[in-house]
Structure formats: C-alpha cells, structure tokens
C-alpha cells in the first residue's frame, strides 16, 4: 500500500458498472493534486525530509557549479533508467509496454522503467539530496511538470543538450506551441512528454445554464445556487493560476499583489466550495457530488465514455496548458540513451501508440492521422470507435484556436513560492 490514489482508482473502477475502458487507464494519478493522504505515507519522502542535515548544510550551493557542458552526441551506453508517472505509457495486461519493447529493438538500449513519480513535489524531495551533493540520482530520464523544470533549471539540476542535433524528431514533429517554452527557452533542457489543460467542467444534469466563463466558477452571484457543489483543486499552482486568469492577469506576469488578489477571490468563493480536490475531483463529478469544478482535460475525456453529457470548458478568459517534460537530471550516467528515447517517442507512429493509451494532449500533431489509420485497420467496431474518438477529441488534439487561449504556469522563484503557498494555505485550510 503506497498510494491512496491508485486505491481510489481501483475502487472507482470496481464500483463503476460496465466500464468500457476498464482496462485502460482510468485516471492518471495526476498527483499534481498531490492527493495528499497517500503521498504522506510514502516512506522515501519522509526519509528524504529527515535527511536534511542540521548545522550549515550547504545543500544546493554545490550543485550548479559543475559543468555547463552540453550532453549528447556520443554513443548510447545500452542502459536507460527512466522515471515516469504511473499509467503514463502504453501497457498491456501484463504491464509490458510495446513502445519500450520497440525502443529496445531499434536501439539495443535496455530500459529500466520505474513508475516512481506520484507527485512532482515529493519526487523532487527524493532526488534533491543526491543532486545537491552533486551525485547521480540513479535516473537518466525523468518526466516532470513544466514549473518544476523551471525550478530545477534555476538550481542547475538539469543537464543541457542541443535539441537540434540530439532530438531532431522533436524539431521536425512537435507542435509549434511546444517550441521555446517560457520555463525552458529554446528547449535546451526539456522536451514535452504529454500535456493537458487545467480548465473547468460541469455536469449539465445539475446545471441549468451553459457554462462558458470563469465567472460561473468564481463569482458568488453566479455560484450561490450551486453552493456546496463547486469543486476546486488542492494543487496550489493550478488553482492560483486559473484564478489569475479570472482576474484577467497573465499568470506569467503576475506579481505578489496579484496573488493576494487571487487569494481574496478564493476566500470569497470558499463558502460555496465543497472541497479542494486532487484527481478525486473526477469521482465527485461522476457521482453528482460536484456540479461545476476545476478539471483536467484527460480525466474528462475518460469520464465522457461513461457520461457523454459531462462537458469540459475552456473558459473565455483562458485555461492553463501544463506540460510534463522529459528531462535529464544532472550527473545522469546515460545521457545519450535518454536523448535516444526523447527522439524515439517523437516519431508520429510511436507518439500515436502512447496517446491511444494515455489520452492526454499529444505534442505530435501528425499522430492524429496515424490514429485514424489505426481506426481503419482495427479488427472490431469497438476499437475503431474508440480510436476515432481519441483522434477526433479536442481534448487530445486541441485546435490552434483552443491552444491560443492557453497560458503556462508562472515559474515561481523561492520567495514567491513561499508567499504563494502561504496565501493558498489560507484558502484551503483556513
């Protein structure tokens, strides 16, 4: 027993009658919600917490020193230690991934695939001591969310590579939106794995009007009638950044004063809010406990197979596009193997294979055609319908118009992070 959210998923699955996708991934543990309870029991996180030395620990100061040299351009070593989130790659019933098998076949590199990351913050807690001491973390490739890329970059904890020569498939096949992101200029340390939207969703059975605006989630005048049926997220970055959009502030340009205004808005909204959720928001929306809620796109896509009425809304004011990225931690033993994997998954055929399973936003637009192709070749109607649904969904292949209305999380420096955490703590815990 290591993770409450996986148990929650299992129970949800068991209690859900006739679920078509039962063997596909139900909810990604988007632990971005840090579903608090479970991760608290993760021993490594607690041990890591105890590991901070007392007197004059110089953690951090040693790290950035080392080298600013660029990795890549060499021969792969034949081994790749890959840390990823649970249920975030295609897997068959025995947990074997076709993508990883094909990668080994094509490159001769053996992959040690570790579904180690339950939550950005606690994973960082686990690898931080090694990075601060300038030691190898044991991983060559890890998938972390954009804001953590920004943080680790600032601390000098990520290896730099030349994306043009080392990951040519990214340059050729990634959607324009993913090039040169704010958290990592010129993709010198990261390329996206999958991404998704933090937006809002509602259950039309419980809501009489059409929901189009963040006003309908935040403004007491609108939400009074749904009191106790409003859901928000417990993850500070998601909630604060979406609230900033409601205030008309581009999160990237937000000041602490803006964050304080966001706190005030959230405090005014709090009496109407049922709870601050992690990935369990999906359960609340499905069982009718929530009428309007903040939502992650991938979860809604999955829920719609059971209840096609549920709607995801990219509000007029905009939504947050978060990006989980492949990165190489400083001191990694097999950086060339990691780069080989990055390049491998940017082939449309491989990207399609992963997307068909995980249903998040695919960074490779060309994969859409490949999935349609797969639908035509499918040997039964069920699979064909499913694959077409994936290929046609705006939640998997968003239109340019939809993407143009999305914003990134603000990358917070240490002081800002402390201040934002404090402000948000008042909101969720009184």
């Amino acid at each position: 027993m290591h993770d409450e959210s996986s148990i929650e998923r299992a129970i949800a699955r068991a209690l859900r009658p006739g679920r078509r996708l039962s063997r596909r991934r139900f909810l990604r543990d988007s632990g971005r919600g840090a579903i608090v309870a479970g991760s608290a029991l993760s021993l490594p996180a607690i041990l890591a917490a105890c590991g901070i030395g007392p007197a004059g620990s110089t953690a951090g100061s040693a790290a950035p020193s080392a080298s600013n040299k660029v990795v890549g351009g060499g021969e792969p070593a034949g081994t790749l230690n890959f840390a990823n989130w649970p249920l975030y790659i295609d897997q068959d019933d025995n947990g074997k991934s076709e993508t990883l098998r094909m990668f080994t076949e094509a490159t001769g590199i053996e992959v040690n695939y570790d579904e180690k990351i339950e939550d950005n913050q606690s994973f960082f807690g686990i690898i931080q001591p090694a990075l601060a001491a300038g030691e190898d973390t044991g991983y060559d490739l890890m998938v972390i969310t954009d804001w953590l890329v920004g943080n680790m970059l600032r601390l000098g904890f990520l290896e730099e590579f030349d994306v043009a020569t080392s990951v040519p498939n990214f340059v050729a096949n990634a959607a324009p939106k993913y090039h040169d992101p704010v958290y990592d200029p010129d993709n010198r340390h990261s390329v996206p794995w999958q991404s998704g939207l933090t937006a809002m969703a509602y259950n039309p059975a419980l809501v009489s009007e059409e929901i189009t605006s963040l006003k309908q989630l935040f403004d007491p005048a609108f939400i009074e009638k749904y009191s106790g049926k409003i859901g928000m997220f417990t993850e500070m970055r998601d909630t604060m950044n979406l609230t900033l959009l409601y205030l008309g502030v581009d999160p990237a340009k937000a000041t602490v004063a803006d964050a304080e205004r966001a706190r005030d808005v959230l405090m005014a909204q709090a009496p109407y809010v049922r709870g601050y959720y992690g990935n369990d928001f999906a359960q609340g929306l499905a069982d009718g406990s929530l009428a309007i809620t903040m939502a992650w796109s991938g979860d809604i896509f999955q829920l719609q197979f059971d209840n096609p009425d549920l709607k995801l809304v990219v509000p007029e004011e905009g939504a947050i596009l978060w990006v989980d990225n492949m990165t190489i931690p400083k001191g990694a033993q097999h950086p060339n193997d990691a780069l080989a994997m990055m390049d491998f998954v940017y082939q449309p055929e491989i990207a399609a294979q992963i997307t068909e399973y995980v249903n998040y936003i695919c960074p490779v637009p060309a994969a859409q055609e490949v999935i349609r192709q797969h639908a035509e070749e499918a040997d039964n109607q069920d699979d064909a319908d499913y694959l077409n649904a994936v290929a046609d969904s705006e939640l998997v292949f968003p239109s340019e118009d939809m993407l143009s209305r999305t914003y990134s999380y603000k990358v917070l420096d240490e002081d800002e992070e402390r201040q934002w955490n404090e402000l948000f703590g008042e909101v969720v815990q009184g």
Partner: protein
Amino acid sequence: MGWLRRHRSIIPYLFLLPGGLWLIVFFVLPLLTTLSVSLQEGSLGSGYRLTFNFAIFPESIMRWNEQFVRSLQYGLIVTILTMLIGYPMAYTIAFRGGRYKSALLLLVIMPFFTSFIIRTISWKFILADEGFVLGTLKDWGVLDPSFRLLATPMAVISGITYNFLPFVVLPLYVALERIDPKLIEAANDLYATRRQAFLKVTLPLSMPGVFAASLLSFIPAVGDYLNAELLGSRQTTMIGNVIQRLFLVNNDYPQASALSLVLMVGILVSIFIYMRVLRGQELGT
C-alpha cells in the same frame, strides 16, 4: 559470569537494553532531528541552516490556532463517542458473550483485515451525494435534494469514531473480562441494586481499561488527518492536514516539524491534566 554475579544489580538494566536501544534509535533520534529541523531556516532548493529560530513556535501556534483547537475538540468528541459506543459493546461481550465471545471479538477486529484507507474511501462512495444511499433516499423524497453527509464536521467525526472504535473495545474488554463475577454477586448479596453494583464495583474496576482506551482513541484522533482529508472540507481542516501539507506539498520542513512538536506537547499536556483529574476522582471515592 563472575563479573555479572558480583554486579547483580546491573542485570535488570541489561534486560532493558534491547527496548532502550530501540527507543533511542526510533524515538529519541527522530525527535531530536525534528527539533533540529524546526529550528532551521531556508528552503529545499537552497538548503536549510540551523538558526535557532525559536520564534517559530509561538508563530505557528498563533497561525494555526484554529486548527489546533478544532483537532483537540474533535479528539475529545471522538473519545466520548467511542467510549459511549464501545463500553456497552465490551461489557456485553465480556459478561453476556458466553460461547460466542471469541466470535464477537473477531468481529470487532474484522475491519483491520482491510486497510483503513480503503474503508474510509469506501464511505466516500457509499455516502456520496447522489450515491446509492443518499440518492435513493432523495428519490423517495425522504431527504431534501441539497442534503449531504460528506464534507461536514459530522462526517469527519463519525469517520474517526468508526476507525478507532476497535482500539477502544479491546482494552475495555480486557479490563472487564478480568473482573471476578463473584464480586458483583457479593454486591448483590449485600443488597446493592444492579445499578449500584455497576457504579460501585464494575465501573471502578474497569477504570484502568477506560484510561487506556481513552488514550488510545484521543491521541491518534487528535493527530488524524486522513478522515478530514477524505470526508471533510476546508471547514474541518485538522492540524494533521496542515502538517501533512507543509511537509509534502510545500516542502516547508521547519514549519511542519515545529507544528508536530507543538502538537506533541499539546497532547502530553492534555493527558497530564486528564491523569490528574482521574487520580483526583479515585482519591475522592
């Protein structure tokens, strides 16, 4: 051997050695680490430095005052509820259980065969607003459509009570089981009513069990965060939730350690008062 024989008095201490070492490694050292961390300042990124920042203790008590008080309140209510439910249960099993005693005890500990996290999450499904219990009652018109059980203080308190009930029943049972029925018969022979016999004989003799049981429910109930997390809302945040969030979400180890220590001291103080009151009562009777 000769040396041991000459220093006989050292033998009891040798027996204490394994337990003592265990306590030092797994209790004293972590406690000192916690203390040290709570007095540090910094961040996970740039490292922590010991600055003997004692101000953090009054600051954290002021900042989280509301959650501390709420946790103590919930702990107290839960202790009383578990006692009211658990004492009759233990009494019945001990004195009226007959040949079903073992079976009944097995039923009491049965819930432990499943992780309490899973059981608590199951309550979430069972009691969901439109779930099969409330949903059905609402369809029948028995309940108002806006009625809900989850995300209320009652849900949290009931959850904790439910989860800690076995911890109360077992020590109470052991204490009650030990009472010699002849003592109660003797009271009856001396013209005590059943009520008097219970108040003058059974209850006082079971007090050690009551004491153990109340500690076993109060201490974990005050520090519990899971029930508040799963069944509660913003208005039911307990101090455990705050510590959990500070530790694992904000990575603010000093603040979290300081709160843990304050919580520990707070519980110790309440127990100390409780012991004084209880002893006073015993002297009074």
